[in-house]
């Protein structure tokens, strides 16, 4: 047996092919199970799908190649190794991560992350600042994010007092709010989950918030009022009704 046809060289070729195929399948699986919405902005899902198809295609072509090589006695193509990883490590890492990913179900960020990142009704200095916002005549058509953007442009809460609101989001029991308040929050996504940031508005309830568990999604209908809660004079939704809803298919707003 000539030296280039060593088993280890052949094994490295198989490893490459399997790693590429596994990543292709992983991307397609995220798409087919709908979980890709948890990872990406909807506008860019097609990129991931295209990459998934391309990887499966590339992997397929190379698979046939390697199968032929395994059967035949042709000399193996010279396997190069680049300086960053020892031979096989790059592929092994990719394969391992892809196999793990195939078992893993990404979950949309919820209250814990929102609290870590800080829920605000303002956009801080380094926050990306969208150049437009939708001006709706019917205030109950405004989403939670629309309200926050409007507030950001004109922050005086009194300007909105009395307007009716109908917003959706998940509940957070913010520590600095009294027991009959909860924060209704949503994540905003620009590109992928890495850049999501939470925005939220305080909701004034008729009863204790314990009836409304954290992370449960609600549709809140009510009226805007101005109150000083948590040491801040701010816009609050006086709720008339809270309806449990299921987590939307696309959990982030954009």
């Amino acid at each position, binding site marked *: 047996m000539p030296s280039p046809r060593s088993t280890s060289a052949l094994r490295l070729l198989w490893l*490459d092919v399997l*790693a*590429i195929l596994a*990543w292709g399948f992983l*991307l397609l699986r*995220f798409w087919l199970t709908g979980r890709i919405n*948890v*990872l*990406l902005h909807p506008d*860019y899902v097609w*990129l*991931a799908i*295209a*990459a998934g198809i*391309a*990887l499966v295609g*590339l992997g397929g*072509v*190379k698979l046939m190649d390697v199968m032929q090589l395994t059967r035949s006695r042709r000399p193996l*193509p*010279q396997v*190069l*190794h*680049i*300086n*960053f*990883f*020892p031979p096989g*490590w*790059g*592929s092994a*890492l*990719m394969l391992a*991560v892809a196999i793990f*990913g195939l078992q*893993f179900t*990404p*979950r*949309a*960020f*919820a209250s*814990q*992350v929102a609290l*870590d*990142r*800080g829920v605000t009704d303002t956009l801080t*200095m*380094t*926050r*990306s*600042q*969208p*150049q437009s916002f939708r001006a709706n005549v019917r205030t109950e058509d405004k989403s939670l994010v629309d309200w926050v953007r409007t507030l950001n442009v004109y922050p005086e809460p009194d300007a909105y007092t009395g307007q009716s609101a109908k917003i959706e989001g998940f509940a957070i029991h913010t520590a600095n709010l009294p027991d009959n308040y909860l924060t209704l929050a949503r994540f905003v996504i*620009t*590109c*992928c*989950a*890495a*850049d999501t*940031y939470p925005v939220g508005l305080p909701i004034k309830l008729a009863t204790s918030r314990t009836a409304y568990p954290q992370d449960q999604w609600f549709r809140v209908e009510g009226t805007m009022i101005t109150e000083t809660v948590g040491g801040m004079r701010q816009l609050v939704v006086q709720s008339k009704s809270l309806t449990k809803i299921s987590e939307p298919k696309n959990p982030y707003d954009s």
Partner: protein
Amino acid sequence: MVQWNSVLTLFFSLMVEAMPFLLLGVLFSSVLLMFVDERRLIAAVPKNALLAALLGSSIGFLFPVCECGNVPVARRLLVQGAPPAMAIGYLLAAPTVNPIVFWATWIAFRDQPELVFLRVGFSLLIAVIVACVFSTQADLRPLLQPAVARAMPATRVQKPTQSRADNPGADLLQSGTFLLGKAGAPLRLDGGGMQAAVLVSNPMLAKPLPEKLRLMLDNMMQELRELGGILILGAAIASVLQVAIPREAVLSLGQGQITSILAMMVLAWVVSICSTVDAFFALSFASTFTSGSLLAFLVFGPMIDLKNIALLLSVFKGRAIAYIFILAAQLTFVLTLLVNLYVS
């Protein structure tokens, strides 16, 4: 448990977003490796150092490769007699000033389009300045690795076919985008005429089309597994950092005009993430770090980082790399500080 899930979700979101761009970058670099002859380009280079630097900095639009792919190309340019200003301009700017990176940065930062244009503008500016500084050195050879220096003038006359005929293995080795052997030990290039000739030309050009396509796929696989591995490490670091470091600490570092820039430059240097996808990495810091520091990450990282220092050592001596590093770092710092102070 929740935090662990957040880390993983972040990690896979970065990977899923970056993978298409990595694939595209690898595809382009492989196609160009097979089909473009850079010698024609060199024939058209202006003599003026500034113009040559500008041209070199802009040919990333023709050769859109990331910082791992550009070192071998820059070396081929040098050995084929390109003016130093052109080769260094290309080396520093090509990973950023190219359509794929522009598109990826645009998608990541479409809410802050100024970042995208400033990234390209600053990269061009720094590349041209450093290239002009180097062009004042009339003979670049003392700064180059002996093998490259020796290959520069003498072996230009050799035809690519001479090197190909007798050693297909060496061809393959030379043609790839990477040239280092075992960690830290660059491939020996001092083997005399034959190897120097391989350096001079792109031996892929003379092969028949089916062979080219096959080699192109091989090259794609090779780059994918290396860069994919690095991307995984980079994405893992980014997602762990984002969840594990207390928000107050990140904010105090990230909101300082100077500390934020320094932190992001160190991060760029350490993480060594491919320029095709580094915009998505930077994006995960977009809400807590100043615009100037994000820009510093995006401009400095592709020019010089931990990973490509090993690659650069296959062309330059340590002293030259130190000059490039210091010049690029200082210029990046000053320019992005100006952004922090006067723009954002």
